[in-house]
């Protein structure tokens, strides 16, 4: 804006750092959250011998418009966000979901009394992404 620099500005200069904070420190951002359950809560401890406790974790939070490199999101995520905002709001916004997992080893008693140790894929979320 064409202003005379000597005069005291009518309104305080726009605080760009405050403005950028919403991008650097967005509230409720898509993140990995901790969750710990024990199999006795599900009454499965009669046949699940180990582990006693298990932390599947979960992803929760908002997916900002500019996802790009921060969330390892594919370009499609930004396209879907654009569709939701500009073209058709019935198309859902991208969601905060797990991107990577860890396996889990489980020791169980089978109905016939035999015992099995098995390693299961994708049992613990370790990273989140917007998709």
């Amino acid at each position, binding site marked *: 804006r064409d202003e005379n620099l000597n005069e005291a500005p009518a309104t305080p200069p726009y605080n760009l750092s405050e403005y950028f904070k919403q991008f*650097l*420190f967005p509230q409720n*951002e*898509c*993140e*990995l*959250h*901790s969750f710990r359950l024990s199999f006795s809560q*599900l*009454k*499965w401890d*009669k*046949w*699940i*011998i*180990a*582990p006693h406790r*298990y*932390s599947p*974790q979960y992803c929760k939070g908002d997916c900002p418009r500019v996802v790009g*490199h*921060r*969330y*390892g999101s594919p370009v499609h995520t930004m396209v879907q966000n654009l569709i939701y905002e500009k073209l058709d709001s019935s198309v859902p916004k991208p969601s905060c979901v797990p*991107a*990577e997992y*860890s*396996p*889990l*080893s*489980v*020791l*169980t*008693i*089978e*109905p*016939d*009394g*035999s*015992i*099995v*140790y*098995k*390693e*299961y*894929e994708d049992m*613990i979320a*370790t*990273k*989140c*992404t917007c998709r």
Partner: protein
Amino acid sequence: PRSRDSAASDRISGLLVAPEEIPSELNPLLRLPKGVRRGYALLPPLLKVLSDQGRQSWESEAPRLQPDSRALRYMKRLYKMSATKEGIPKANKSHLYNTVRLFTPCSECKHSHRDLMKGDLHSGDLLFNLDRVTALEHLLKSVLLYSFDTSVPTSSSFTCMCHLSVKEHDFSSQVCPSVSHTVAFSLHFEVRKRKWVEIDVTSFLQPLIATNRRNIHMAVNFTCLMGDPQHSTEQDSYINMALVPPSLLLYLNDTSEQAYHRWNSLRRRRKNPVRPRQRNSLLADITDDEGRENPQGKRASRRR
């Protein structure tokens, strides 16, 4: 896209009938379309109850035969050696198996087993029922697991002659309905604090298990001599080996999609070392340093 070699029947796709529409007293298996029921039956109990959204399914309520305490102790020890405290398979393990099954001899089904010929099962015989082994679990190694009675002196050494024979019931052949394979071998071992002896019988059982035989009828005859046979004296006569009937341990490679395939994760890490970013703290993308706190507060060491 499903990988080519995954049998269609082992996946639970979206064909599940919504449980609420089916009266709950029905056996949950009946709620599933026929095609999926076979796949459902293949699922390990853990995934069955998970796919039932934890509703009390007959699987978790079904009466369980309690396993032998010695066998349970052995499997807990195997679990501790293979997984971390949080239950994650240890990364430094390079074994190919992702499943280990332990079967104890089937005592109650000695008489009720309909395939057996009359008088076929002698007292020293062992019958293992391997119905729980699924079609996608491929045998890598099988072991007879002996444990010693506590009365055996702990620092003794043994030399044993072992005669192992497996009886196959080949109903198609009238001439010799019962074929027997026998192998004899000797072994020398020390009994220290460890009270287990593992005898590898893989080459012996592989043909049977590979041809989907689920009832293994085995006779094992042990004759053991305490001390060293060269200097044995009359007093060291054959001792009555207080051997508890062995368990059968199967090391398997489960190729179903739910099972963890260690070699895949290694290959994936080699293929794209740069992983999607982990958003667990603001500084992650700015500093991107090595040892950053993860949500549990533990210092997470990130391997390049």
